[in-house]
């Protein structure tokens, strides 16, 4: 009886898991087959004669390639540098300074950025960029993305910083090290995993950004891949599915790779566990 039950529950676990996997993966299967299919289709079918022709045609579209390999790298790389630098300094300063209410402050800022950083602030952000002559510049997009991502990044980084024992820095203080020196010699090397996680998180977020670049950029030459994806349309105005899929495939690959990297190096989870 007992054995029967455990077989039953094992079967249930497998079925439940497969249902979950199917729910999350089936909608994406088309992205895996369509790029290698010769004729345009919306169906998921394993191509009889897989081809790389679609990728070749994608590479002929210099506008889309420039978007992916130049504009996207500039925007995502720039935001990554900005956010990880500023968030690292801020979370360190925040953690190591006596400041009443600082936990609440970070939490509120994060909620605030969820509210303001979303679609609500599009107009003032646009006007701000306009007044600063940042419209149609990558710097403008980078700055706006940084502003929106920063509170959450500080929130994530804080726990990496808090996990450094205070005695490490106190020892350095006793032995005469200055704050900057302590940060460079001791704190930074120890929070590098956190910096890496926040950097990758920012990169992936900025890499996929659509709305802010659309609002902030004018010249097609500056558009990122999320906008360039809409350039694979026929003259009749309908998407050429095979090319869209091939481009989307290329566009999605870095995200997949970075996910695997984080998962392999740190384990993709809520880093550092959560306090209850």
């Amino acid at each position: 009886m007992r054995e029967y039950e455990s077989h039953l529950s094992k079967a249930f676990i497998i079925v439940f898991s497969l249902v979950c996997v199917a729910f999350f993966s089936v909608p994406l299967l088309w992205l895996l087959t369509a790029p290698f299919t010769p004729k345009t289709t919306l169906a998921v079918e394993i191509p009889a004669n897989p081809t790389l022709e679609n990728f070749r045609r994608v590479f002929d579209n210099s506008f889309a390639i420039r978007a992916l390999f130049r504009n996207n790298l500039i925007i995502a790389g720039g935001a990554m540098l900005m956010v990880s630098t500023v968030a690292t300094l801020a979370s360190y300063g925040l953690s190591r300074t006596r400041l009443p209410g600082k936990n609440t402050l970070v939490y509120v800022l994060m909620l605030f950025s969820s509210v303001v950083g979303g679609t609500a602030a599009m107009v003032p952000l646009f006007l701000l960029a306009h007044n600063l002559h940042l419209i149609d510049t990558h710097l403008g997009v980078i700055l706006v993305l940084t502003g929106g991502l920063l509170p959450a990044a500080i929130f994530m980084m804080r726990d990496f910083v808090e996990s450094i024992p205070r005695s490490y820095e106190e020892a350095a203080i006793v032995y005469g090290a200055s704050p900057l020196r302590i940060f460079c010699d001791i704190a930074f090397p120890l929070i590098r995993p956190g910096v890496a996680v926040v950097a990758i998180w920012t990169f992936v977020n900025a890499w996929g950004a659509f709305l802010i670049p659309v609002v902030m950029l004018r010249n097609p030459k500056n558009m990122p891949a999320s906008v360039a994806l809409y350039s694979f349309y026929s003259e009749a105005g309908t998407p050429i599915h095979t090319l869209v899929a091939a481009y989307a495939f290329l566009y999605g690959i870095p995200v997949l790779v970075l996910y695997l990297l984080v998962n392999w190096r740190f384990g993709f989870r809520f880093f550092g566990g959560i306090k209850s």
Partner: protein
Amino acid sequence: MAKILLEHVTKRFGELIAVNDVTLEVHDGEFVALLGPSGCGKTTTLRLIAGLEVPNAGRIQIGEREVTHLPPRERDVAMVFQDYALYPHMTLLDNIGYPLKVRGVGRREMVGRVTEVAQKLQIGDLLQRRPAQVSGGQQQRASVARALVHQAQVFLFDEPLSNLDAKLRLEARAFLKHLQREVGVTAVYVTHDQAEAMALADRIVVMNYGKIMQIGDPLQVYSRPANTFVASFMGNPPMNLLPCRVDLAAGKIIFDDDYMLDIAAHRERWSAAISNGPQFTLGIRPEHISISPTQLPGTIPSQVYAVQPLGGEWLVVTQVGRELVSVRLFQDEAPPLAETVWLRFDLARTFLYGSDGELLQ
């Protein structure tokens, strides 16, 4: 080296008074232990000396300089932390040499000085390893080595042995004591372990609730606890403390109403300090009570409550009325449970504490 002077030092954290009006002088070259339960203010006192905390009131002096508001690096102190604070991303060489690196000493000279100190502490061949690759005892030595390299006037130890297992701790004790004598540096040592404090220190400062309860050399503190707190903190097992009243005219100490001790012979010793009254505490160490299987004059009856073999001796806990009394018994056999035995107190070695907990006489 240098003496350390704390005058009326107070440190508050919000509502909590961590260090309350502490005055203490540590002599040049002396090894002083700050002893007390967790939260008694001993670590805060140490951190005040280090400059990691700034007092709300009072002044601190190291050598002839007032340092109350100076940052740590200008105080010329070295500190060994409870978790050793060795940096996991640096080799032992870089860890030990870090104070020199901060001071701008060249790499070559740094390596030379670190190697010299490390060899003295028998970790010379581990210098290329990282902290995680050496044992706890070796980490502890490395953290002492870092303090030595710093060549400070004052050494501060924050429970440096509490992360070691029992055997290593005994070894490390001997090593630290030897080292401190050899270097001749002034040392302040925080611990909650009374045996460690007794073993290491020239003088012990017992603290509780941010206040100094007693200062004295180890034997003094052990054999003449100045108050019931020190009496209950020092010794393992601690001193028996029995609420009692004293009838001086009759020459008796009465506890639990029924049990009387004849103090006629000691009346002289006590009469100066006490008056008749209900609220006293009688203190006696377990080794100063003896057990007799039969009633003798001057003994009081009790029941055996628990018996613990300690190897070569016994700890017998007996029940006298509502009180439990521990007795150390140096003999081969212990009385069986629930047996009635008679206790004889060595009255010359009892202490009487007043209602404020302070030692009388």
